[in-house]
């Protein structure tokens, strides 16, 4: 009796089953279970307690601050990321390779260091510290510092999502548009942008998720002033350290929910992008 035909690239049935099992196990234990735990813990004492925990003044301030930081960071990184992609993919200039490396730098540097750099520059003992203090400008331990650190950490998301697509698409369509009489802005708005729109939206969502969730860099520049410079991730830590588990898990659940919504939106966009 002959064995059933198996194509060359196909693994043995037992190998396939083992690999699938391993992947599912890791997915459940490492990824899904902790997430489920956060929501379970948050809801353990019921919706009422959860709601009360979220409605606390400092928590509301943290949520507000997080949204403000994201609202400033995401547009800046969208425009900056697009500009970097546009420059790298559509033009040749000296230092282009350096720019490509710089775009990825925030991914490879520890967020704590990203935060420390800003303290070093703008902090009271930093390079520009005395100059800023003389003019009563507060950057570190204030909103500008939080925004700067978040911009730095989340810069690559838009750029890295869009750049490969732009490079793959080349310059021909832009050149064709130019010969047809389109201005630079018309070319960008009517040819380049529509070609990258799904990747761009997906990059923006990832950037937003990270901007709201960033802990390390923000922790260094924040100063942890409750109700003033505490973002949601920092607030979770403070509540947890003070044994306020109900509050900690309530904020954590909200943060996780924001992340999940982002992920769902991104998945949906990618599906649309494939059909467009």
């Amino acid at each position, binding site marked *: 009796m002959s064995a059933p035909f198996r194509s060359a690239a196909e693994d043995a049935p037992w190998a396939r089953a083992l690999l699938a099992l391993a992947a599912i196990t890791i997915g459940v234990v490492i990824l899904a279970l902790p997430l489920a735990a956060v929501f379970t813990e948050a809801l353990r004492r019921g919706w009422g307690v959860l709601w009360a925990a979220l409605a606390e003044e400092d928590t509301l301030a943290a949520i507000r601050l997080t949204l403000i930081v994201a609202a400033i960071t995401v547009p800046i990184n969208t425009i900056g990321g697009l500009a970097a992609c546009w420059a790298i993919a559509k033009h040749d200039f000296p230092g282009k390779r350096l720019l490509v490396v710089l775009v990825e730098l925030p991914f490879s540097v520890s967020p704590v260091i990203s935060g420390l750099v800003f303290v070093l520059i703008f902090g009271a003992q930093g390079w520009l510290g005395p100059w800023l203090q003389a003019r009563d400008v507060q950057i570190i331990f204030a909103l500008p510092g939080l925004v700067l650190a978040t911009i730095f950490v989340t810069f690559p998301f838009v750029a890295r999502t869009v750049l490969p697509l732009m490079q793959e698409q080349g310059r*021909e369509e832009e050149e*064709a*548009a*130019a*010969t*047809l*009489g*389109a*201005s630079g802005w018309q070319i960008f708005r*009517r040819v380049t942008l529509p070609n990258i729109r799904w990747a761009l939206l997906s990059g923006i969502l990832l950037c937003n998720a990270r901007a709201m969730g960033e802990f390390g860099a923000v922790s260094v520049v924040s100063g942890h002033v409750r109700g003033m410079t505490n973002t949601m991730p920092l607030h979770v830590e403070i509540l947890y350290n003070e044994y306020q588990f109900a509050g900690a898990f309530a904020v954590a659940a909200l943060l996780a929910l924001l992340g999940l919504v982002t992920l769902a939106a991104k998945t949906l966009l990618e599906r649309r992008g494939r059909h467009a």
Partner: protein
Amino acid sequence: MTVEASGITRRFGDAAALDGVDLTVREGELVALLGPSGSGKTTLLRVIAGLEGMDAGTLRIAGQDMAGVPARERGIGVVFQHYALFRHMKVADNIAFGLDVRPRATRPDRAEMTRRVAALLALVQIPDLARRYPDQLSGGQRQRVALARALAIEPRLLLLDEPFGALDALVRRDVRRWVRGLQERLAITTILVTHDQEEAMEMADRVAVMERGRIVQFDTPSALLDQPATPFVAGFIGDAARLPCRVEGGIARFDPLPVAPLPAAVPDGPATAFLRPSELLAEPGSGATVRLLRPQGGGDAHLVVEAGGLVLDARAAPGSTLARGDACHLVPRGGRVFPTAG
């Protein structure tokens, strides 16, 4: 619309892609830029289109100096090698693009735009494809869309960059004849870049043969065949065999090859002869052997002959009865002889 280029030079790093190119294209003419890859023909086309800068030289289109005139103000229609259709736009929007990006004062209204697009679709013979996206079209259809899009801006000059390269051989022949007919009907000055000499010779009024960033000869197709200016042109145009010979007193001798002498108006000394298969007749004799034989009907036959280690395409002399394996010798009926440099 005339094009006058003089001394155009374009360097990429140390390498000169264009090295002092002079080219004059007359009103309504179709000129082909023909050359091997890397000869600079596409770069020249891009310089004319304004997509590439030049390091030296002047370019005039309709007498107007193009220095500092950006691509979008030149009013030149370009059909790109891979068509470069806007992939997210329907065919109709692709074609209307050049009209739609005009400033409001010169932009046709919706109805006029629709009418113009329909007319262009009819012109390129794809009236039913207006609502399709580029990725739903065949190569030939995409090419027609690209042509219609370029023609929509009523260009004074049309540039075609290897426009038939992505089509399969059968479609290519039909499409290029159709394009040539259309070009004549519209009387639009056209420059075509190609590496396919059959395409250049069939379509163009004049052909500029390019080699290493220079135009080595610019002439009509028949003049290129009959009076090639350099050995490169003689070897590149037509399907010529290259035979070493020695010229003495106006006669090229091919000893020790079994090839009869050929009159040659070049100085005495070593030389190279370029002989097309139709110019090389095989007669019964000695020194060469018929290796392959392809009858053409009517007693005519294409031969592959081996002579002194060379494999040559030849024709059977009229009335000869050569068969595979027969011994023969070769008689040149014509050919172009160039003194060997150095």
